[in-house]
């Protein structure tokens, strides 16, 4: 069906793809695997005409094709659902699906009836029930994804690329997506599936292709490999255990105590305490209120009620700046949108909230001290970059996260809140981030770690608060921290509602 041969791509003098092959058959789900920076995205951009290969050929059903742009790739039957959706939030599903190629009736007016009928037909073909007439921003992430897939299908896509589609889905939504993927496979669509969740590869994929550092590593059937072998192919070395050892449980003093937090009127009321030197995991499904709870605690998000004590004294934060003043820092879930100023250099990003530390004559930045402190912080977290003046948008996800960590380590913080600390970060860098987190707690710092990756929650947390429907339903520690217990609480836990 689709054959990419010897694809090379250079940006200036730097070659990022060194002759990559990819063969995808009709009616199969093909996993494209590799760490971040392995070249998956570049390869997919070449496939859909956004980038031009420096060398190599693209064949579809035996015919060699060249795509000057995205539109030509679409015309050749390629559909792609990007990690960041390209839907217009205030238009409904039908309008989004037919954007820029609206069906017209007589007099050139929109023929909504015909479009809606076609949209409904495609949704039936996908066996999903997505509301067609409400603005898509009111749909769930999974439903928006189905709209994206339906849009690609309405363009007669025979080759569908799904770039990390499960990253933001709940387990039941993932199941639903897989059902849709199986249906499409039955109909003969070739699906290229990109995911960092290896268990999903084994569940849904038929064959895999692994890239590493822009090189083709291997292509084989899923049945020929196991988890360890896959990781080894991706990183080129065997990683036995990602997680640093946990310290022995201790009765260290409480640093932050949230006596009560209620996100919505009539919603559940939660309480939790954070001890010095511990990592407190926040587990739960996406949308269970974990991020909202920490935002409410810092006064950065809405809350009906919120009572916080820091070192035993009652505090009311009106924003992250007041959290900072009390040594509480937030490392948000989306680095590009919430964590970094992408047009800034590493130095400027690390310094962003640090200027109090290097002043000259009260008013001015002491540039020498700033450079020295930043260089030291970069070394501490082992950022790999040309230097402190490199722009952060040239860095990989792992290094970007290290820059955000460096920003906070440069302060004497006592509490760091990591929201999805390793989302979109490759296996090798993950281990480094984990090590940095443990270094921080070993020095007496405390961490709240929000994570949707169960292995991460289990491997890193000393205690785990499990969230469901906007509140904490259980707090587990010790041997209780294992997947079944946590998942049970997260999916079926009883929620106490207080008016």
């Amino acid at each position, binding site marked *: 069906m689709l054959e990419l041969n010897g694809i090379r791509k250079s940006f200036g003098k730097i070659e990022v793809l060194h002759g990559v092959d990819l063969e995808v058959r009709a009616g199969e789900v093909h996993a494209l695997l590799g760490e971040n920076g392995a070249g998956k995205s570049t390869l997919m951009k070449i496939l859909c005409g956004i980038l031009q290969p420096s060398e190599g050929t693209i064949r579809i059903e035996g015919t060699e094709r060249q795509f000057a742009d995205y539109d030509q790739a679409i015309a050749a039957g390629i559909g792609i659902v990007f990690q960041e959706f390209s839907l217009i939030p205030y238009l409904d599903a039908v309008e989004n699906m037919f954007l820029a190629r609206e069906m017209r009736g007589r007099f050139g007016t929109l023929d909504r009836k015909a479009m809606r009928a076609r949209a409904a037909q495609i949704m039936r073909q996908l066996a999903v029930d997505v509301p067609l007439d409400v603005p898509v921003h009111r749909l769930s992430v999974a439903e928006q994804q189905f709209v994206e897939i339906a849009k690609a299908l309405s363009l007669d896509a025979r080759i569908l690329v799904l770039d990390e589609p499960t990253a933001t889905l709940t387990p039941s939504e993932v199941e639903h997506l897989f059902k849709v993927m199986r249906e499409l496979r039955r109909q003969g669509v070739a699906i290229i599936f990109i995911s960092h969740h290896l268990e999903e590869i084994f569940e849904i994929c038929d064959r895999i292709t692994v890239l590493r550092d822009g090189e083709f590593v291997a292509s084989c059937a899923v049945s020929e490999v196991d988890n360890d072998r896959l990781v080894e192919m991706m990183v080129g070395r065997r990683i036995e255990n990602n997680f640093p050892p946990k310290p022995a449980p201790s009765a260290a003093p409480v640093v932050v105590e949230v006596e009560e937090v209620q996100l919505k009127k009539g919603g559940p009321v939660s309480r939790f305490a954070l001890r010095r030197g511990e990592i407190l995991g926040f587990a739960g499904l996406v949308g269970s209120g974990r991020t909202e709870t920490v935002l409410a605690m810092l006064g950065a998000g809405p809350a009906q009620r919120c009572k916080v004590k820091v070192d035993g004294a009652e505090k009311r934060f009106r*924003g*992250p700046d007041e959290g*900072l003043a009390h040594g509480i820092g937030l490392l948000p879930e989306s680095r590009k949108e*919430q964590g970094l100023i992408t*047009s800034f250099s590493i130095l400027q990003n690390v310094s*962003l909230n640090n200027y109090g530390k290097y002043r000259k004559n009260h008013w001015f930045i002491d540039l020498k001290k700033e450079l020295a402190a930043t260089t030291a912080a970069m070394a501490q977290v082992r950022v790999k970059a040309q230097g402190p*003046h490199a722009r952060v948008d040239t860095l990989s996800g792992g290094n970007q996260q290290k820059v955000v960590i460096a920003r906070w380590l440069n302060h004497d913080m006592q509490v760091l809140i990591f929201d999805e600390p390793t989302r979109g970060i490759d296996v090798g860098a993950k281990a480094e981030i984990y090590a940095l987190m443990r270094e921080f707690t070993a020095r007496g710092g405390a961490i709240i770690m929000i994570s949707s990756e169960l292995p991460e929650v289990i491997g890193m947390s000393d205690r785990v608060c499990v969230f469901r429907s906007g509140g904490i339903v259980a707090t587990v520690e010790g041997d209780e921290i294992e997947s079944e217990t946590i998942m049970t609480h997260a999916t079926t836990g009883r929620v106490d509602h207080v008016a």
Partner: protein
Amino acid sequence: MSHDANTGAAGKTGGFSFGRLLHSPLALPLIGLIVVSVLMGLASDSFFSLSNIMNVLRQVSVVGILAVGMSFVILTGGIDLSVGAVMALVGTLSAGLMVNTGLPAPVALLAGLGIGLGIGLANGVLVAWGRMPAIIVTLATMGMARGLGLIYSGGYPISGIPSWISWFGVGRVGVVPVPVIVMVVIYALAWVLLQRTAFGRHVYALGGNETAARLSGVKTQRVKLAVYGISGLTSAFAAVILTGRLMSGQPNAGVGFELDAIAAVVLGGTAISGGRGLILGTLIGAVLLGILNNGLNLMGINPYLQDVIKGAIILLAIYIGREWR
């Protein structure tokens, strides 16, 4: 390391190199300035005379000073449409205070600066804490400022102010006009603020990614308050110079100056979406606009046609700038 030139990150040293200059955000405005100057020089013998150059700079000073405040606001991702009207109101009120209430002139001028700052801070409060779009807030205050000036003066210029005030508008120190000195000092202060203080970095951070700045603990609302305050203050400084030049408070002065100030900022290479740009670029942009005005006048081109030509040149410059990187 040319990237850092975007925000003027300092802390690195490095010699001058042509390649670096070419990749600096100032390259395009500078090239534009040189090209336009050469063309004007060819078209008119008197263009490159010292007296004409000083004349151009003097004419530039009012819009040039307005553009400083505008740069701060645009760098945060905002806009301030009220600058021209605030300038007129401040000029009218300070002249009125001198003439009608008998307030000592220096006190009246200081009061004018306070009024400008106050209106700017009001804009800032409405944008930062009122969470209203800057373009709407400042459009409204623009109308209000203009209207208040007309009400106060009854629509007529207020003259009869002490003659020494003309020093601010037409005075000279050696060959250099006083307004030019004022303008250069304001630009120098702005450069220091933007490149050497935490506040300056926060201004760029806000335009680059406001959410990230807020979540990392930057007091974003205060930064916004400050940039609109600065814009109000520079409007008031421009008013002092204009009052000195016209020797009266003119409620109808400065109509459309906000657009010239925005044009100067954008011609100077600052992104209208904020986060990127240099204050020196704004100065170049303002001078570029001034040279166009002056040159087209020297050539005796119909004033109505001049507006068309200026608009076309701005479009061309922005188009080339878009393709530059």
